[in-house]
Structure formats: C-alpha cells, structure tokens
C-alpha cells in the first residue's frame, strides 16, 4: 500500500549518483518518523534501467519500488512514467534533444505519461522555454516541488500551474542517500504498481509534500 511516493530520484544506475537502492531504503527506515514514505520511483538519467530488479528489496523493506526515466528534451527535462517496449522503441532516451511535444503526445498514446520536472530551473526547465516558444499540448502535471531547486525556482512553478491549470507533484531529485524522500507526492488513492501510478497522474488527486526541516539557527565562525 503506498500513498506517499518520492517521484524523482537517482540510484547508482545513473551516471551522476553513487547511491545504492538498498542504502536509500535503509535511510528511509531510519528516518521513517520524519519522512513517512511508502514508495520510491527511480528515474535514472537518459535510460530505462530494465535490468534493475528490486522485488527482494521491496519485500525486505516494505517499500514499493517503481522504475521510470528522466529524459532530456528541447523543452527541458521530463520524467517518463510507465515506460514500456513501445516507448523505448519509439524514442532513443540517450538523445539529449528529444522533441518534447512528441514525447508528451506519443508516451501518452503508448500508455505512459511524461511530466516536466524542475520546470523553474534555468535552461533545463519548462518555464524558460515557454518564454520563447508555444506551450506544449497534453501536459497534465509538472514537478512543483523539487528537492534540488534553488530559491525562487519552486515559486516560479506556482505561477505556471496557476496559468495552465497543471497538476502538481513533488520529488527529492536525490542523488545522495541522505536526501531521499525530502520531497514527495501524496496520492489520494493507493498506488500498488506503475499502472496505478500512471492512472493517478492522468486524473489528479495528488499533491507535493515537503519533509524538509527548517534550517536551525547556527553559530557562524568568521573564517575557517
């Protein structure tokens, strides 16, 4: 049973992370009170990690583990959920200039859903591209809360959502073990598998949740 999922994180299968999936699960078990997550969606960069089999880890830790992808398009980075053979045949995920409109439309037609991530980020976020070109058709939701965003980025997304009526979700975008689950998505319905997730993302009934603690006041030394 999973209602709260981290929708965006990278394991050692991505080229810029060294985090083993089991280390994420151990960390979550340790931080259960602060980050009450029930599921993870691994979104490896520019690939679908077909070889990753996490069923034993799901049983051991009682956490749902789903696999998706983060691809790069001419409108910035996009998370693809519900990746299947048809989608992998249609698109070369290694291509860093995938046509975003085709990704959104074709992934939906083939049974998945593609959703822009960290849209407020310069260069690789949707908002910057919307300032120069027509908006994409068929976008249902965007990552409104990203754990790696800088000040102002998530705030810019609120304006985008207000303007286009997109659904909002959240993810940690963790590349380090200790950042897992700091941002996540809460679903009204129980998510048991990828089909449930794709269905839920299409219709709504979810929202970003922020488990980050406010920064405590710290004594700052003049120099080190």
């Amino acid at each position, binding site marked *: 049973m999973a209602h709260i999922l981290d929708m965006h994180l990278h394991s050692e299968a991505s080229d810029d992370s060294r985090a083993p999936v089991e280390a994420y699960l151990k960390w979550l078990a340790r931080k259960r009170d602060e980050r009450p997550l029930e599921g993870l969606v691994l979104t490896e960069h520019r690939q679908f990690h077909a070889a990753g089999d996490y069923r034993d880890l799901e049983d051991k830790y009682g956490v749902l583990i789903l696999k998706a992808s983060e691809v790069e398009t001419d409108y910035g980075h996009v998370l693809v959920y519900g990746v299947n053979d048809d989608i992998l045949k249609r698109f070369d995920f290694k291509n860093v200039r995938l046509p975003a409109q085709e990704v959104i439309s074709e992934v939906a037609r083939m049974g998945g859903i593609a959703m822009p991530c960290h849209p407020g980020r310069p260069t690789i976020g949707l908002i910057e591209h919307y300032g120069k070109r027509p908006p994409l058709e068929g976008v249902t939701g965007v990552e409104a809360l990203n754990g790696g965003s800088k000040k102002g980025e998530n705030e810019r997304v609120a304006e985008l959502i207000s303007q286009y009526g997109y659904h909002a979700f959240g993810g940690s975008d963790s590349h380090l073990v200790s950042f897992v689950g700091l941002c996540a998505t809460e679903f009204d319905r129980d998510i048991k598998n990828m089909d449930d997730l794709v269905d839920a993302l299409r219709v709504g009934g979810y929202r970003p949740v922020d488990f980050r603690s406010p920064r405590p006041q710290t004594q700052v*030394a*003049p120099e080190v």
Partner: protein
Amino acid sequence: MNTFYFEEIEEGDELPAIDFFLSKDGVRQFAKTAGMYFPRFTDDEGARAEGLPGMIAPGVMSLGLLARMISDWNPAAVVKRIGTTFRSPVLPDRNVHLRGAVTQKNDEDHTAECDIWMENDDGERWVIGTATVVLPVKA
C-alpha cells in the same frame, strides 16, 4: 577532535557541521597559494567579464573544505576517494555550511561511505558529493 574506530561509527551518523563566513580575502588567499590567481577567483569585475555573477571560489577549495570536514570529524580517517558535483558557483562574502553523514559501512575493508555537501543560508546545495573513508579498527 576524537578518533573513532570503524566499530564505533554507525550508518546514519552525522558529521559535525562546519558553519563559517566565506570571505573574498580568504578565497583570494587560497587562489594565490594554489597558483590559481585568476580574475574569476580574485575580483568581481574580472569575474563578471567572464559571465559570472561575481568572483567565485575555486572548485578545489570547496573540495578541500569538504575533505577538512571529514578530517575534523575523525583525524584517523583516510579519505580514499572523494567526488563532488558543482551545482552552482560558490560565491564568497556570505555564510557557508558544510554538512555530511555516514550512509554505508563496509565490514570487509573497514570503509565508510559518506554524503558530503556545501549549502548556503537558504539551504541551496552548491556542492554535493560522496567520500569513501578508511577507518582504523580496534586491535
């Protein structure tokens, strides 16, 4: 500073935080000592001419500060590997916060994997990375 043995650390342990003001003079001093006395590391005008928002700290300085956090935590720890990703230029003349945590222990070679990062007052992570450290074992 204490020396910790491999057996005394736990996954989930936090490295003692370091919070300090990163001054422009401190960055200039580092750049001079490291043979990197280039405008981007020494003055705002020169850095802006290169398209930067102002003078920045050299990447190896950030790497060194994060390594220092590890040696402050445990002077007996040997850094076997350290790797960082620079998410944003590190801009001096503001507070900097170094953080870290032990995420994995390997009983076979007595190493620990640590998350390490540098962030600003707003919690924006400028530099993130990991380090593998070798720890002494009890006789």
